[in-house]
């Protein structure tokens, strides 16, 4: 491979992972924008989504694509079931753990979210220990699980040195419409306007007749659904899941949200793509084991020069 081919290849990998990170980052940033809560459990919600996806794969008996096909069409039910599940779980967590703390000091819901994250992680541990046939690497609870390859590994570019598989295409085919739909919703619908109003000033929003609690609930539902989509395409793209991955991937997504400017939707997408590409380049040109260090060093540097993130508002904190 020539140097430029390596570069293009890493760019493809980085962008694909970046789009997945962006979906999760949107969940963080949307909730933060409205209730100013770092929803720590979001990464672990994503992890639960991947476990449900694998369970559904087993229940439906899905397998690798047939000859001549690039994808098992069984991914479509996955893309419906998992987002619905994640949205429901996220909304329930808000109802039970965060909403009662809306008036408490800032630290209280954050700590509660860390608690929810630990609960999810423990559920993932139990889930991974269940005796299920899909866990073909054994049912040791903490062991990573193989995710069935529902999408083919064949290179769509034929004999080229650069590999572009149906997996990468799938990532973009799922994420791009979602991002567009979200943008349209937030910008042009009544609900989107209500969300922006609540983010700006909840009390004033309530005074003009917006039901603030429902709008906050919608933010949790949308963020959860996006995490659900991310679970499915992450599992299809990377083919390994384990119960602690929520922390790892959630860290990347949260870093992306902060890098882009937390609360800003375009910022989350930009941050996600940047983190994905930085990771890929660092894996290639520095060393895989230093990648986490590189990512956080970039974050600290970026925040040093732009304390509110790349696209974040620079307005002073509300007093």
């Amino acid at each position, binding site marked *: 491979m020539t140097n430029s081919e390596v570069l293009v290849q890493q760019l493809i990998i980085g962008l694909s992972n970046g789009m997945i990170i962006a979906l999760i980052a949107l969940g963080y940033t949307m909730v933060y924008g409205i209730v100013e809560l770092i929803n720590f459990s979001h990464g672990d919600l994503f992890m639960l989504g991947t476990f449900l996806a694998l369970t559904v794969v087993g229940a439906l008996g899905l397998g690798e694509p047939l000859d001549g096909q690039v994808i098992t069409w069984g991914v479509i039910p996955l893309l419906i079931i998992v987002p619905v599940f994640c949205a429901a779980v996220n909304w329930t967590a808000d109802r039970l753990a965060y909403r009662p703390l809306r008036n408490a000091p800032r630290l*209280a819901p954050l700590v*509660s979210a860390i608690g929810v994250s*630990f*609960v999810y992680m423990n559920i993932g541990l*139990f889930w*991974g*220990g269940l005796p299920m046939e899909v866990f073909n690497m054994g049912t040791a609870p903490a062991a990573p699980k193989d995710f069935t390859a529902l999408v083919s590994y064949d290179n769509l570019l034929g004999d080229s040195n650069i590999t572009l598989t149906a997996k990468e295409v799938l990532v973009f085919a799922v994420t791009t419409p979602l991002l567009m739909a979200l943008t349209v919703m937030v910008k042009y619908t009544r609900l989107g306007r209500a969300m922006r109003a609540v983010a700006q000033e909840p*009390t004033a929003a309530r005074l003009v007749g917006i039901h603030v609690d429902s709008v906050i609930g919608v933010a949790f539902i949308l963020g959860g659904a996006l995490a659900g989509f991310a679970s499915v395409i992450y599992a299809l793209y990377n083919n390994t899941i384990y119960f602690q991955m929520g922390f790892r991937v959630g860290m990347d997504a949260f870093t992306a949200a*902060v890098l882009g400017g937390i609360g800003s939707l375009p910022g989350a997408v930009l941050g996600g793509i940047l983190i994905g590409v930085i990771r890929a380049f660092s894996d290639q040109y520095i060393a895989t084991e230093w990648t986490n260090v590189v990512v956080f060093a970039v974050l600290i540097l970026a925040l040093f020069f732009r304390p509110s993130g790349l696209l974040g508002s620079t307005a002073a904190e509300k007093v």
Partner: protein
Amino acid sequence: MAAGARTGAGPGLYTQAHWLILGIAALLPIADLVLPQSLQVAGLVRPILIFAVLGMGLNVVTGFTGLLNLGVAAFMAIGVYTYAILTCDIYPFQWGFWGGLAGAMVSGMVAGLLLGLPTLRLRGDYLAIVTLGFGEMVQDSLKNLDAITKGTQGINPLPPPTFLGYAASQEQPLRLYYLLLGILAVVVLLTRNLENSRAGRTFISIREDELAAKCMGINPMKAKLLAFVIGACLCSTSGALWGANLGSSGEPGNYDFQLSVLALCIVIVGGMGSVGGVLLGSVVMMGFNSIILVKLTAFLTQRGLIGESVFTSPANWKYLVFGLALILMMRFRPEGLLPSRRVQSELHEIDSGLSAKPRVEDAKP
């Protein structure tokens, strides 16, 4: 200001609780003389003492100053590794216990300064993520720099602590126990004094209202940095004690985010900003982690009750218990089990109708 300080350290349980807890801890080894083997706990209490020091460090940063630090495990790791490098006989230093401890404290302060200088001007939530990232960076760096840190093997053996020429190794658990307890008592005394000092009141005023503090002539950056450095110093002290107690640095993976959350649980469950609370939090959280879970697992294994299923091992329930503890604490007793008076009155200002801030719920019809 002086009056404010007094309401924080008013009379009653809050002011004396830490001495009560330390006193009980001092009597434990004596209780062990009469208790049967299976109920003896003094050996298992040592982690509680060390994590109480870690909790004190986090309490200065998060409890007093209100800065959420999610990377205290990193400072603990820095303490452990500095102590290990300065004392282990495979390195040229071999400064002994007190030299290693002093070195660990200095390196913790330097690390706190280096992390704090560029990041402390960030808003609260950004600071939280940066400290979290710092924790991951330190952990990965320790893993990767295996030429110095021996990677995942960890550095060992570390020499046991000494005091006035007496060695306090694992073979003399009583000496080790009282040495750790003594150091904890000194830390408690210093933290209590800090809380009531000019610097401590500055920290608390920043937690309460940074803008108002600024208007009163406090330099928030300087105060935050001081709190951060003091906190880092205590955390790395706990690291050095951990290394001395274990006789090994352990592997870098031990000092992960879960350890930082454990420290946070200690401070929150006990009571943010409350010295006695942090001691109690350490007893509760570490007691569950290193005594109840250990004893329960041993008991169930002995009876042959731990089967194939994932649900039968008590260790598998740990995260669930920690998680629920945090959620329920925040819901029903956010001020902690043994709250600092000032925090308690702040948290219940809504009940007493003193809140001046417009809140989301206030507008409800």
